[in-house]
């Protein structure tokens, strides 16, 4: 027998009763359907405690490490605090440390949180302007002692938050950070560290990919890592020197900048369509780990094509940047 904590309630879980059934009994509206561990509608998240292995079967590695579990399959032997997914993210206060222009319309914003936040590069946070306005941005850096978070922010035409960052925000100002959110991060088993990885993104999609790349290298990924950065023109690429330094330092990293129309400003650039170039990387993507971030249309296109070329659905992580409507 164990105790189940959910919102403000505490339940005694009799042996054999699932977390889902107990919560439904208690009047909570938990989404659910098959009660067989297949549909994933009943997914909850661990706030604290441990769940049995059966309760995480079928979930992606990233979801497992984030503490997601299937409540219909969960019959815990020990006390468990559970919550609805994404309630685990917290609100932090942060101070602007630096604002650097990376290209004509992209700024690198680095903030320092008032307390440590546990995160994986590639996840994202909500950046809050006072308490009024927020937008989501991916985390481009590794966790640091100084509690820093790095984001790459594109100035959107008529963008409320991005205009604030570009024209008003100054070093020393306070911002709000909520997170971490998302499951697009490096979570690869020991055996898979020798397998090839493909990272492909457009525009500020490079932010999460850069973070994931740094994370992979930190965790000693041995397999080849191909990182593609797509843009319309040379002037929209950024971090080119950073990327070239990484490829010099690590001989398993390949950096391929791809633009639709090149003006010869960047060495080694490929002129073409990102999806076409990405698919040329291999005859088959079976056993590859794939990360795709950025423009919705392009990401979906690559996702489908790469799946048709052998990539397993479980290994494709796609984070499409959907602009605020």
């Amino acid at each position: 027998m164990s105790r189940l904590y959910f919102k403000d309630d505490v339940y005694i879980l009799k042996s054999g009763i699932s977390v889902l059934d107990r919560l439904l009994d208690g009047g909570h509206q938990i989404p659910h359907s098959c009660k067989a561990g297949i549909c994933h509608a009943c997914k909850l998240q661990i706030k604290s405690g441990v769940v049995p292995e059966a309760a995480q079967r079928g979930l992606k590695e990233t979801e497992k490490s984030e503490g997601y579990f299937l409540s219909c399959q969960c019959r815990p032997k020990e006390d468990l605090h559970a919550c609805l997914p994404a309630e685990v993210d917290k609100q932090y206060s942060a101070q602007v440390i630096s604002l650097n222009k990376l290209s004509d319309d992209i700024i690198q914003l680095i903030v320092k949180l008032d307390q440590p936040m546990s995160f994986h590069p590639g996840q994202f946070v909500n950046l809050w302007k006072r308490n009024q306005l927020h937008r989501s941005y991916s985390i481009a850096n590794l966790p640091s002692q100084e509690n820093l978070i790095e984001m790459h922010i594109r100035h959107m035409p008529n963008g409320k938050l991005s205009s604030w960052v570009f024209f008003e925000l100054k070093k020393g100002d306070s911002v709000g950070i909520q997170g971490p959110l998302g499951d697009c991060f490096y979570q690869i088993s020991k055996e898979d560290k020798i397998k090839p990885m493909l990272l492909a993104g457009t525009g500020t999609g490079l932010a999460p990919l850069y973070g994931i790349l740094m994370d992979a290298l930190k965790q000693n990924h041995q397999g080849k890592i191909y990182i593609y950065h797509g843009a319309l023109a040379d002037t929209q690429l950024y971090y080119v020197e950073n990327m070239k330094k990484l490829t010099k330092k690590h001989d398993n990293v390949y950096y391929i900048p791809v633009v639709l129309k090149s003006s010869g400003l960047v060495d080694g650039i490929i002129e073409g369509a990102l999806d076409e170039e990405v698919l040329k990387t291999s005859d088959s993507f079976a056993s590859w780990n794939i990360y795709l971030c950025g423009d919705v249309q392009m990401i979906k296109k690559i996702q489908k094509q790469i799946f048709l070329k052998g990539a397993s659905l479980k290994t494709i992580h796609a984070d499409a940047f959907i602009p605020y409507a």
Partner: protein
Amino acid sequence: MTSIYERIGGEAAMDAAVDLFYRKVLSDDRVSGFFEGIDMQDQATKQKAFLTMATGGPKKYTGKELREGHKHVKDKDGNGIKDEHVTIIIEHAGGALKELGVPDGEIGEIAALLESVRSDVTNS
């Protein structure tokens, strides 16, 4: 008597089955139109449930649920699901399971089970 689901490896086999099945479906112009623009991961979860049901695993849909779930499905030209589409999907499910080593006799059983829900899926 174990089910086909258990014999081919249960839940772990379903991931491989979905990859094989969904790839066949998306590569077939005759039916891929129904999956245009749909979130792939969402769809994969549903395909897994479908194949689990087809192989006798722990997932059962009622005729009503199948009817409701497919009633509004249209391809990019606005066509609903017709008999020929169902036949093609059943063929692809069979093809995927064959690649996983399910013998022909059992593929026949699975096809028969899927045939029994044909009218629910075409809403006829």
